[in-house]
Structures are given as C-alpha cells and as structure tokens.
C-alpha cells in the first residue's frame, strides 16, 4: 500500500543493476511492475511513445513550415512527457524497493502525518514582453527574424503545452491565450514554465525545400549558413536539458530532420505566486544572442495563477448535528444537516435541501479566525460538544454543536482539524474562492486593449477592477469617436434645432462635450472637415446661449483632466461667427450636474434643454477645425463617459419623462419607448462605435 507522503528518493547509483535494467528497457518484464499505479504510468508512456512516433512521421512527411513547426512542438511535448513519466516510474520503483527494505528493518508505525488536501491550479493569460531595439521595431529594417515559440508547463506529473505562436519584430509581447488547469496539485507545488523557441527562417528548413534541392544545399553551404544550419539541427551549447536537470534516462531519441526547439527561458512558480489577478514574474533566460532561436526577452512574464484547493470546492464532511447558539435560549438547539465546505459550515434544515440548492437555514463561518474546541463531557449524555467561536464585528459568537454519538464527535473534530490544516497550507488560496475559467473551445479576446508593453499593463494593474477600468477607458475613447463623427452629420440637424430654439423660452445650451481621456491610438478618426461650420452657425445664433457667460465658470477642477490638452478650437455656437475659436477649460463635474438636472437620456436624442444650467459646462473641443454643435447626444455621452471620473454618475435612464414635455407636443408612446431604447444604449455599459 502506497503512502502519500513517501518522500524518500534514493538515488540509483550509476551502473547499478537497477539502472542497467531500466536502460535496457527490460523493466516491463521486471518483477517491480506489479502495482496498478505502475501500469497506469506504463500505459501513459506507451501512449506518448505512440504519439511521438506519429509526430516524427508527420515531421518527415510534411512540406510546409507551419506544419513542421507544429509537429516538432508535439514531438518536444511528447519527449518531455515521456521523460517525466519515466522518471516518475523510476521513483516509484525505488520507493517500492525502499519500502520493502524499511519494512524489514524498522517498525512500520502508523503514519499519522497530516497531509493537506490537493487542489486545482490554473495558469492563464501568459504574456511575455519582448524588448526589441528601437531601430528594429520601428523602422523594420533588415530581414525579418521570425521565431516559433510555445510554452511547456509542468506540475507534478502533468505536462501541458500551449499553442505555438510565431514571433517577429512586429510583436511586442508573446501572448498565449490558453488556460491550463492542473487537477491534482499539492500546496507545495512547483509549476515549471519553460519557453521554447525555434528559428523560423527558410534558409535551413529542410521541410520547405524539395528534398533533392535541400540535400544539395546542405552539402554545399557556405561557412556562415552552414554554421546556422548545424546550430539549428543539433542541440548546441545553447540548449540545456528540458526537464529541469533530472537524470536523463536513455531513450531512443529519434533524430528527425526538421525544426528543433530549444529552451529559451524558464521559471518556477509556487504557492506564493498564486493570486487572483495578474502578476509579473521573473524569467531565467538561457541562451545568448548568438543562438539562432534567440529572442530579446524583457525578462519577465505576466500571467494569472489561480488555485482552488479542494477544501474550498468540495464538501469536507457532512452530517446531522444539533446546533445551539450560546447566549440564546439554552433549550433551543436546532437540528440541522450540516455541510463543511470552503470557509463556512452550512446548516440546512434537511439533507435534501443541499441537492435542491435551497438556501441553508444559517451559516457558521469557519475560517482562519475561528476557534474550535471540544467542550467538557456533558454529564447527561456523555457526549462531548464542539464549540465554534467567531468574532462578528466586535462580538464573539459561539455555537455549540452536538453530534449523535462519540464517534461522530471524533469524526467532526478530525474533519475540522484537517480543514484548518488545509487552510494553513494553502494560505491565501483559502481566503476566497478563486475563479478558474475552464478553457472553452473559443476563448473570447480579453477586454484589455493590447497596449503591447509591460508598462501599460503595470499601470492598469494597480486598479482594483481591471476589466471595468479598461472598459471605461474604451468607452471614453468611443465617446470621443462618436462625438467627433457626430459633428459631421447632415443639415437635417440644423433645421430641427432651429425649430426647437424658436419655441424654447429659455436659452438652450449648446454644449460641446469632448472628453478625451487619453491618447486614442486605436481610433484613427480625424476631425470633421471645416466646411460644416457654416451650417452650425445657425445653431449658434439661434441657440442664444446665455450659457456663454456660464461657460467661464468652471465649477470644480477635475484632477483627472490634467492629461487633457488645452483645446485649440471651440464652440462657435457661442458666438455668431462660426470660425471663432476660443479655448476653454473643461469642467467635467459641472457638466455632469448640469446634465443630470436635465435628465438626459441615452445617446442620439436631440432637444434643447430649457433649464438654465446650474453650472457652466463647456467642454473644450479637443480637435481643431471641429465644428461644434449642440446635441443632447454629445452631452449624454459626456455624462456617460464622465461617470467614471466623477462620482456624480448621472443615471441617464432615471429621469426621463420629466425632462420631456412642454412646450413641444407630447411625444407618442412609440417615441417614448424609442427614447427609452436610446437610454439603454448607455455606452458606459455597452460599448458602441461609430463607423
């Protein structure tokens, strides 16, 4: 019977009988191969050997470079797996031998060392930044040096590889979209990440050139080309063994002509690196610039390493209990069916509630701060009670559990001890359940705009909620785009506005909102052509913007506007001449309160507000030659986009109907509903782009 905590690892002396036997491959017939675990591994080895043979054949047969690289990758993965399985097999056999030896010599006392529970470890969103020389990256000079890279991830006996990515000068990061989940990891796990690369140039790919030609070429290559070829074909001084330095077992390694991967960088991650967010880790780089498979790595790797220990996801123990809360009525103990899972003891009324997903009657926290002890024996029933104490707020609350029998009490105490031990071993993974996304066939692209540099990612990382920050930035950018393009709409707008302004008793504000939070390198819209200006002049004259005077007031300086440039042009609507441009400072908060007062809806609707703005809000025109115009939509979009920056988030959906009304005729039902529809197109929540 195997013991889990068997860590004895006797090294097999070189030249010893055991080693020779293994080398000769005769281990299959050896007497050691009895247990089912061995045969499991043997089956895996056989499977991998078959896969490897297949990969070799494919490599020999394929003619396209991509195929050859993929086949070589499979070959590498299979070889690594085989080596890992074989070393595990060897370890197991050694352990068996040692077991037999120790049993004879010493007492096989009860092994009561507690073992922590296993868990799932997932690594995802691997990104390795590159550091090309400026000239290389921007000017694209010289021949394009391309490499095919992939990552090999090893934890315990499980080895996975990521997809292959072709990297050249135009990429700033190597990104692997795969999520890799290791199912049985102990808290002391070591996840080894290795980056393999292979030069992907056609000089010496025997696969892409016709065979005859290839052989002719290889035999008559010049010095430097020949050197490169040789370096690519054979593992030179730049490629150490890939399985972390374990003793290489002799295997018939197939030498196949074709691309070969070399280890470029590696690192080892463990429990301390686990966190429910992206982190940066250091990479150890092997190889140097002379190697053909060299890539200028920045030296770091970003990834998300999450762990779900089984104590958080599985039921540790369940059973019937009587629970009494101390301080309450001493007679009232509730009969419950209790389930210990994660950081709580869930108490259900009946056992069926658990499967039916009904809410538990109550929950008792079982976490690092909980204290559990067995109380003195109850004189009546001679059964020990278990007391669980927690601090809720400033108060200490104690629950007393009574089980049905002494064995049960013992069982529960044992379970609690094990649970606490697990939590102490898995440390930060037991604070909260980390989410592990199972790899889906089509993984959606991340919301993060690919900034292409570690620095960008670091900046965003500091915020609490990555995705919302980024989508806010995106939303704001989209707003800018929308605004810019809205300026260029046809003159039907103008006529509408004229009508409105005629009836409007109060001055209408024509605000030009132009938030531009950060550089829009994604959007390539340039400003609207100036020929629009004359049309908008109508707007300005009719609008009678007393808000003009308001505009000078800027209510609250917004610190987040520091990045915004002084606008060079501005609303001609504030003056009669369309080309008059006046720089203004932006005051986003003020704008927001104005808009809220008007109860603007979603983008696209258009009417003037009759309310004098409580504060002035003139957003500057960030782009020159842009013709300003008054639109509800722009104001709305501003409100939506500025919700991130100011705390007064205008809920544009809320105050709809009061905003619309006299002096215009009551809108029909359909119109209102369409307006509501507009409200739902809130770019804050759902990104929209103008094309």
């Amino acid at each position: 019977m195997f013991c889990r905590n068997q860590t004895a690892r006797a090294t097999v002396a070189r030249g010893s009988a055991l080693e020779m036997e293994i080398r000769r491959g005769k281990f299959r017939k050896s007497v050691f191969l009895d247990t089912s675990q061995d045969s499991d591994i043997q089956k895996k080895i056989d499977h991998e050997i078959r896969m490897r043979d297949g990969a070799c054949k494919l490599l020999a047969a394929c003619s396209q470079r991509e195929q050859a690289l993929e086949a070589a990758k499979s070959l590498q993965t299979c070889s690594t797996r085989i080596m890992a399985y074989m070393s595990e097999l060897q370890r197991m056999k050694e352990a068996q031998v040692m077991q037999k030896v120790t049993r004879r010599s010493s007492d096989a006392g009860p092994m009561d060392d507690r073992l922590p529970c296993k868990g799932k470890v997932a690594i995802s969103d691997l990104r390795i930044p590159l550091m090309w020389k400026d000239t290389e990256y921007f000017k694209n000079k010289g021949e394009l040096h391309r490499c095919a890279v992939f990552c090999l991830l090893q934890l315990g006996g499980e080895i996975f590889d990521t997809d292959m990515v072709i990297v050249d000068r135009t990429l700033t990061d190597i990104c692997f979209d795969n999520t890799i989940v290791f199912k049985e990891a102990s808290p002391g796990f070591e996840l080894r990440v290795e980056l393999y690369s292979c030069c992907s140039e056609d000089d010496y790919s025997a696969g892409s050139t016709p065979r005859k030609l290839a052989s002719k070429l290889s035999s008559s290559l010049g010095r430097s080309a020949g050197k490169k070829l040789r370096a690519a074909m054979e593992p030179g001084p730049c490629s150490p063994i890939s399985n972390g330095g374990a003793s290489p077992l002799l295997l018939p390694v197939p030498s196949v002509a074709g691309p070969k991967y070399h280890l470029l960088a590696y690192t080892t991650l463990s429990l301390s690196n686990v966190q429910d967010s992206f982190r940066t880790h250091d990479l150890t780089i092997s190889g140097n610039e002379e190697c053909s498979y060299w890539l200028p790595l920045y030296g770091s790797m970003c990834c998300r390493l999450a762990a779900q220990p089984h104590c958080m996801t599985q039921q540790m123990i369940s059973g019937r209990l009587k629970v009494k809360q101390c301080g309450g009525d001493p007679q009232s103990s509730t009969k419950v069916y209790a389930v210990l899972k994660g950081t709580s003891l869930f108490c259900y009324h009946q056992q069926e509630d658990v499967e039916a997903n009904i809410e538990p009657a109550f929950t008792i926290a079982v976490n690092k701060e909980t204290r559990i002890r067995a109380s003195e024996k109850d004189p009546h029933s001679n059964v020990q009670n278990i007391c669980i104490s927690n601090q809720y707020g400033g108060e200490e609350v104690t629950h007393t559990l009574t089980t049905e029998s002494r064995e049960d009490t013992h069982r529960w105490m044992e379970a609690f001890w094990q649970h606490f031990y697990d939590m102490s071993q898995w440390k930060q993974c037991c604070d909260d359940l980390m989410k592990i996304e199972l790899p889906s066939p089509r993984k959606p692209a991340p919301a993060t705009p690919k900034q292409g540099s570690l620095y960008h990612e670091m900046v965003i990382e500091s915020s609490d909620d990555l995705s919302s920050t980024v989508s806010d930035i995106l939303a704001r950018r989209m707003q800018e785009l929308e605004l810019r393009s809205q300026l260029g709409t046809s003159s039907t707008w103008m006529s509408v506005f004229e009508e409105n302004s005629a009836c409007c008793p109060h001055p209408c504000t024509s605000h030009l909102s132009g938030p531009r939070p950060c550089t829009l390198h994604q959007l390539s819209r340039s400003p609207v052509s100036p020929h629009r200006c004359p049309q908008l002049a109508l707007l300005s004259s009719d609008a009678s913007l007393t808000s003009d005077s308001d505009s000078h007031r800027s209510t609250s300086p917004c610190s987040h506007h520091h990045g915004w440039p002084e606008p060079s042009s501005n609303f001609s609507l504030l003056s009669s001449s369309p080309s008059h441009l006046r720089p203004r400072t932006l005051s986003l908060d003020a704008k927001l309160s104005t808009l809220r007062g008007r109860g603007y809806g979603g983008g696209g609707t258009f009417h003037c507000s009759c309310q004098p703005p409580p504060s002035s809000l003139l957003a500057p025109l960030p782009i020159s030659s842009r013709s300003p115009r008054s639109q509800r939509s722009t104001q709305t979009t501003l409100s939506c986009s500025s919700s991130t920056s100011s705390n007064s988030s205008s809920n544009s959906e809320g105050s709809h109907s009061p905003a619309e009304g006299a002096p215009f005729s009551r809108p029909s039902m359909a119109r209102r509903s369409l307006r509501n529809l507009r409200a739902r197109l809130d770019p804050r929540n759902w990104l929209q782009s103008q094309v």
Partner: protein
Amino acid sequence: MTPLPSSPHLCFSFHSPVFLVPACLLLKMPVHCQRIEIQKLQQGDNLILGFSIGGGIDQDPGQNPFSEDKTDKGIYVTRITPGGPADVAGLMMGDKIMQVNGWDMTMVTHDRARKRLTKKNEGVVRLLVTRKSLEEVVKQSMNKYPRQ
C-alpha cells in the same frame, strides 16, 4: 423643475422609418436576411458609413437592447446617421450584422468588428444583416420601460 421640451425629431434615426415608411412595412415581419451595400462617404480624411455598432464577444450581451436572446454576442446596429450612407442603403437600427464583405461578424470582438468596417482601402461594404420587425423592437423596449 421646468420640464424640458422635447423635439419632434426625438430619435431622428429611428423615427424616420416609422413616420415615412408606408404602413405595410410596420406590420410584423419575420426575421430575414438582407444584403445591404453601403458606399462609403468621404469626409475629410475618413471614409464613413454613418452608423454605430454595439456588441462583440468581449462585451456584455445582457446590455444589448436589440437582441432577442440576451446571450447573443453579435454585432448590432445601434444608430443610423440620418441621410448618411447606411441610411441611404437601407440599414436599420437593430439590425444584426452577420457578415461584412464576406467576413464573419458573429464571433468577433467589438474592436475587430469596427476594424472590419473601417478598412481604409475599401470604398464599399457589403453587409449581410438579419432584421427583426420594427414592431418587435419597439414592443420590447416598451415592456422594459413602462410608461411613467
């Protein structure tokens, strides 16, 4: 608080079909595919199409007011600039874009969708869209926001 005046052209882009289109088209139409060819319009340095899109596999599909199935992560038309190229070509708000010049748009990120529509060297985009009846869209939004 003085109620604000509402414009008769409140949702101009959506209204025009409702007012100007003959009554027969307001009857319930089944979902059908339509091919729409839009000629891009030169505006300054850009070629514009005159509509806005929403959706994408990286967006929250629950926020899409046009989709029937709230897990639909497709690309929908959220606004049409009146008189713009898309409007002229017959694109309507709420249309779901299935293809753009042969490229699939049912499983793309928002940014990729936008890029596929705004390629610089293309002067014409041919869209394959599916359209629910207008009445459906109006009814849906009415249900969501009852009269206050």
